[in-house]
Structure formats: structure tokens, C-alpha cells
């Protein structure tokens, strides 16, 4: 019997017993539904990482010279200890770094910490304080909704001026124009000169609770009491240019610190790529764990199908006998039942895909979890559905094909 015929026969048999068929494919449907939902969440997070997180937080074609990396897998006790022993990065390093960078690159200095701020108009609260220098705002792509950025003079003199984030503005200066007003951080008043455009949040954490002041202002003594800086950020126009810049800076630093050829770097240069690879590994782990459970669901679903098919074969023994008496060979009967199981299972998978997509869309819309349905998961789920059906159907189909027609015809 040709495959198309058999599929049609399978569909009409399934249709004739809708309720029973529904229960049979329930396991597969639920397994696939969770599979799609989980993969969608992981893919959604991954996409978020690449587009929003990496882009926003770390910048494109950007690397930061730091003491040690912030995003690293499998940090051992040893590694941590070694990191603590490393020399610090200081403002004075900026000179030498700037000297090896081509004119096309931008650089900035960053020193940050959480500090308490207060104003005359609201209760004091924690803010993320950044003491910055160089083309910080350009590199980070921070836009203002009112006011201005620091002038070159203010940067050089360390004038106590501040650019605040949108949430800082609304909390500390409710219904007021913050420009020109004072915000106290660490007991020292800063004049607000600019308000930043709302940045939104990352995983539920607001990016608008920040305040920025020139590095040389008193702020840097608060954020890095030891006198060092958190990092020097360098942005290049292209990925290749960035690689070149990284090499130049690495050479410089190694020379400065008198490292021999065999010795590893005692500083870190973190790019969005290195942060991303951290998340790639995380994503990989999440995918494995997240799909393990639905996979078990699929196995159970397959066993359900196998058992129901065994019952079906027993109930339809007479039918099998009739078909054999009319000329059906063993392989015709085998194919009929195998295809029935596969069709049932694939149908279940397709329904599961539909449900999984719906769940993913709901999660994306209603929760902070990002979910994006990945086409590869849909294809894989469909294939899995068919494979599970075939594997579960083999045993019942063989039983059916081996029935003795004479005995089969005697069944009630």
C-alpha cells in the first residue's frame, strides 16, 4: 500500500476515534509544547543578550581594559586569588594607552560604585555613581532629553557637575526641572547639568538610576577610594580595527608590567564577545537542562502510543485477518500500523507546537522573560514527533503483521 494511501487510512482511523486518539497523543503534545516553550525562552534570552545586553552595556566594537574580567565561566578559587594579586589600573595608564591608539578610536575612563544620594526634595536613596572621563557618553551612546554634557573644562577641572538618569530626576526632583539644582552624593553637592533619556531595564534592573560626574571631581574618591579606576574603555570603528587596538594595548601593558613572553596577561580586556561567550555557555547548559524534561515527556508519550497501538492491534485482529485474506502482505500490515502510529504522533507534535508557540507568546507578552520561537525547534519537534511515532509503533506493527490470518479471522 503506497504511503499516501496509508496516511489517509491512518487519518480516517484517527478521526473515527477522536476521543481515544486525543488521549493517545496527549503525552507527545505536552512534551513538545514544553520543548517549544523552553527553547523559545532560551533563544529569546540569547537574542536579548546579543542585541540588547551586549550592545547596550558593553558597546559594539568596544573593549574595556580592566584588572580582571567580569564575565567569566568556571572561576576557581585559585583564579580569584590570582586576580586579587594583580596590579591595579590607574588614571595614569590612560596616557600611555591613548598614545598607542589611532586617532579613529575613542576612549574613556570609568570608575563606578553604588552610593547614597540626596536632594532637598526627596528621601535619600542609592544610585549607581559613575566618575567618567573621555568620550564616555559617545561610546555608551547615552542621549540626553534636557541639559548638556560636561564641557572639556569641567572634565579637566573636575567641576562637581552631574548628569542624572531619568529615574534619578523623577525621584529626587519630583515635578521640578532638575537642571541647575543640587544633588548631594557623599556629602558633596553636584549641580545637575543634564538629564538622560530613559534607558529601560535589563532583566528587571533599571538602567536609569545612574548619576555621572567628571572623573576628576570628588566622586572618584568615593567610587574607587584606593585611587585606581575600574577600566579604560576603547571603541574602534570596525571589528578589525578593534582587534588591532586590542593588540596594541596588550603589547603596551605587557611592556609596562615587564611580562615575559611565556607569562599570561595580568590584566583583562573584556569585549562584548567575551561576555557573550559566557552567556553562550550558559545558554548551552540551559538548553540541555530545559529540554531534558520535555524529552522525558516525549518518551512517556511514545510509550503511551505503543500501548494504545497494541490494544488497537488486539481489537482489530479480525480486520487484519480480512486484509490478509484479500492479499495484504506482512509489510502492508506493518506499514499500515507503523504509519498510523507515526501519523498520530506527528499530529500530536503539531498540536504541541501550536500550543508551545502560544505559551511562548504569552510568556513574552506578560512576563519579563523574553521568548522568541526558534524555527529550528519547530522543525526538530515535528521530526521528533514522527520518529517517536515510528519507534513506538514498531513493536505493535510487527505483532500485527505476524498474525496468522486463519486465527485472526476467527476473532469476534
Amino acid at each position, binding site marked *: *500500500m*503506497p504511503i499516501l*494511501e496509508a496516511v489517509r487510512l491512518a487519518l*480516517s*482511523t484517527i478521526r*473515527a476515534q477522536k476521543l481515544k486518539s486525543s488521549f493517545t497523543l496527549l503525552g507527545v503534545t505536552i512534551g513538545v509544547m514544553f520543548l517549544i516553550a523552553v527553547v523559545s525562552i532560551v533563544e529569546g534570552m540569547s537574542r536579548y543578550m546579543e542585541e540588547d545586553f551586549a550592545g547596550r552595556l558593553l558597546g559594539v566594537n568596544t573593549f574595556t581594559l580592566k584588572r580582571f574580567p567580569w564575565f567569566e565561566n568556571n572561576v576557581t578559587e585559585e583564579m580569584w586569588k590570582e586576580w586579587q594579586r594583580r596590579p591595579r589600573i590607574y588614571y595614569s595608564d590612560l596616557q600611555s594607552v591613548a598614545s598607542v591608539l589611532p586617532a579613529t578610536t575613542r576612549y574613556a575612563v570609568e570608575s563606578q560604585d553604588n552610593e547614597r544620594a540626596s536632594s532637598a526634595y526627596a528621601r535619600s536613596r542609592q544610585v549607581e555613581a559613575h566618575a567618567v572621563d573621555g568620550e564616555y557618553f559617545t561610546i555608551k551612546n547615552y542621549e540626553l532629553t534636557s541639559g548638556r554634557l560636561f564641557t572639556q573644562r569641567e572634565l579637566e577641572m573636575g567641576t562637581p557637575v552631574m548628569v542624572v538618569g531619568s529615574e534619578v530626576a523623577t525621584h529626587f526632583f519630583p515635578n521640578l526641572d532638575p537642571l541647575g539644582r543640587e544633588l548631594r552624593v557623599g556629602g558633596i553637592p553636584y549641580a545637575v547639568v543634564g538629564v538622560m533619556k530613559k534607558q529601560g531595564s535589563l532583566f528587571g534592573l533599571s538602567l536609569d538610576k545612574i548619576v555621572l560626574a567628571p572623573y576628576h571631581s570628588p566622586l572618584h574618591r568615593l567610587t574607587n577610594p584606593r585611587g585606581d579606576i575600574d577600566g579604560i574603555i576603547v571603541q574602534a570603528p570596525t571589528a578589525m580595527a578593534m582587534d588591532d587596538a586590542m593588540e596594541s594595548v596588550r603589547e603596551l601593558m605587557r611592556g609596562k608590567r615587564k611580562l615575559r613572553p611565556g607569562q599570561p596577561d595580568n590584566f583583562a580586556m573584556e569585549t562584548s564577545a567575551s561576555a557573550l561567550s559566557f552567556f553562550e555557555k550558559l545558554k548551552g547548559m540551559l538548553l540541555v537542562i530545559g529540554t531534558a524534561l520535555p524529552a522525558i515527556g516525549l518518551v512517556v508519550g511514545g510509550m503511551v502510543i505503543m500501548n494504545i497501538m497494541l490494544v488497537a492491534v488486539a481489537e482489530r485482529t*479480525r*480486520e487484519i*485477518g*480480512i*486484509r*490478509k*485474506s*484479500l*492479499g*495484504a*502482505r*506482512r*509489510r*502492508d500490515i506493518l506499514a499500515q500500523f507503523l504509519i498510523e502510529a507515526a501519523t498520530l504522533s506527528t499530529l500530536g507534535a503539531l498540536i504541541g507546537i501550536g500550543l508551545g508557540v502560544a505559551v511562548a507568546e504569552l510568556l513574552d507578552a506578560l512576563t519579563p522573560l523574553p521568548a522568541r520561537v526558534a524555527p529550528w525547534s519547530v522543525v526538530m519537534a515535528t521530526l521528533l514527533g514522527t520518529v517517536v511515532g515510528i519507534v513506538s509503533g514498531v513493536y505493535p506493527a510487527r505483532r500485527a503483521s505476524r498474525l496468522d*490470518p*486463519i486465527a485472526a*479471522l476467527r476473532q469476534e
Partner: protein
Amino acid sequence: MSADYVTGEHPISTTAEREAVVATAGAAPDSDWVIVTRGLKREYDMGGEIVRALRGVDLAIRRNEYVAIMGPSGSGKSTLMNLIGCLDTPTDGEYWLSGQLVSEMSDDQLARVRNKEIGFVFQTFNLLPRATALHNVELPLVYAGVSAAERRERAMESLERVQLGDRFHHKPNELSGGQRQRVAIARALVNRPSILLADEPTGNLDSTTSEEIMRVFEELATAGQTVIMVTHEADIAAHAKRVVVLRDGLIASDDRRSAFKAQSGL
């Protein structure tokens, strides 16, 4: 326990038949004979004990014959029917169907033979309950690999032949017993088989419908179809031109109708 052909104690009716059977073992009988069996035996092992259902049956049936096979239960008539219908293989002996040595065939080959050469009609109709009359009749053609369009046409023709041209899309539960049996006959004939093999075809029908169905068989036989009817009822067997009686796994008698009628006083 082979019969003595020379003295004629073996109950084969005619000389020609005897010759067909007695011919050199392994040689195909000539094309006049649709069924030839030589020393057909079927034994079962029922948990240590050997049951000899058939103990050496010699049979020769020509094309276009209308033969009834009779016998009480335990005579081996069902076993013989299953062997003739290629649903089973003999333990010993030869079975030639339309010149093919069926007794040596594999499962798949037998299935093909069943499909092409044999049309079954059962006592309990054995139609697929969830399929229409048309689809039931199409089934042998499906397994023969015939295209959908041709299948439909041939199935419709077959149903018209048994006067069910207006019932194509009815399901078995929407048909009377007689109609169901006619669908079964249409199905049996759709692949133009060598033999029409009927097992108590009127067993589940009332007397009027039985007569109706027997008339159908008679028409088919007259039109040239080889018909083999297995029954335990003498009045059903009387419709056939030749009656083979089995007893204890052997043929007890094999007579043309006139002789049979004379013997049983009909």
C-alpha cells in the same frame, strides 16, 4: 495411507482427473486444471499430540466447475478450504493452483496469490465495518497496486454486477444481510480471480435471502467462474454440479450431481 489408483478405490470421478493427479510428482498439470492436489496432508502439533486434519487428499478441479465440498465437523473440510485458499500451507503433498506450485510458496508469494487468484466469501461477510461498500470492494485492488481511478471504476462495475449499483456509499451497518453478502461477492470478484471460494455463504442468512445468494452463485458459475462452495448442508451442496465429501481427513466420495442426487435420494 495412499489410495490404490489402479483398482479405482480412490474416489476420483473421472479418468482425466485421475490422470491429472497421478501425473509425475512435481510436474505442473496442464492449463485445463485450475486446482490439482496430490497427497495433500496437514498435521498440527497440539501440545505433544499430533492431529492429522488432512491425511492425503487428491483433488482435480477444472476451470468453470461448480464444486461443493461437504463434510461433518472434524472431517478436515475447513482445513482443506484454508489450504485451497492459500491461507495455510500443507505439511506434505503438492497443491497446484492455475499451474503454480503454491504449496512451496513463501508468505509474501501466498499473499499475492490470494490477492490475484482467490476470491473469498465468508459466512460472516467479513467486511470492514467503517468503510463504504465501494471502499470494501476496492480493497483487493489497493493491495494489487491499482491506481485510485481504475480502482473506483472496477469496484463500481463489480457492485453493479451484483445489483448493488445504488449502494456504493453505504456502510455495512446500513445494508441487509443479503446485501452485505453481495458486497462480499463483489469484493471477491473484483480482481478477476481463478476461483471463488465460499465458506458457508448462506449460514447467516434466512431462507429467502439464502436462495437469493445461491442464485447469484449459480449465475456466476454459468457465466464461467470457477466456484468452490464449502458447506455442511446437503441442500446447499445440491446447487453445485459436483460434490466432494470429506470424512476423517480423506475424500470419501467425489461425484457429479446426477450421481450424487441418486445416492442421497434428492
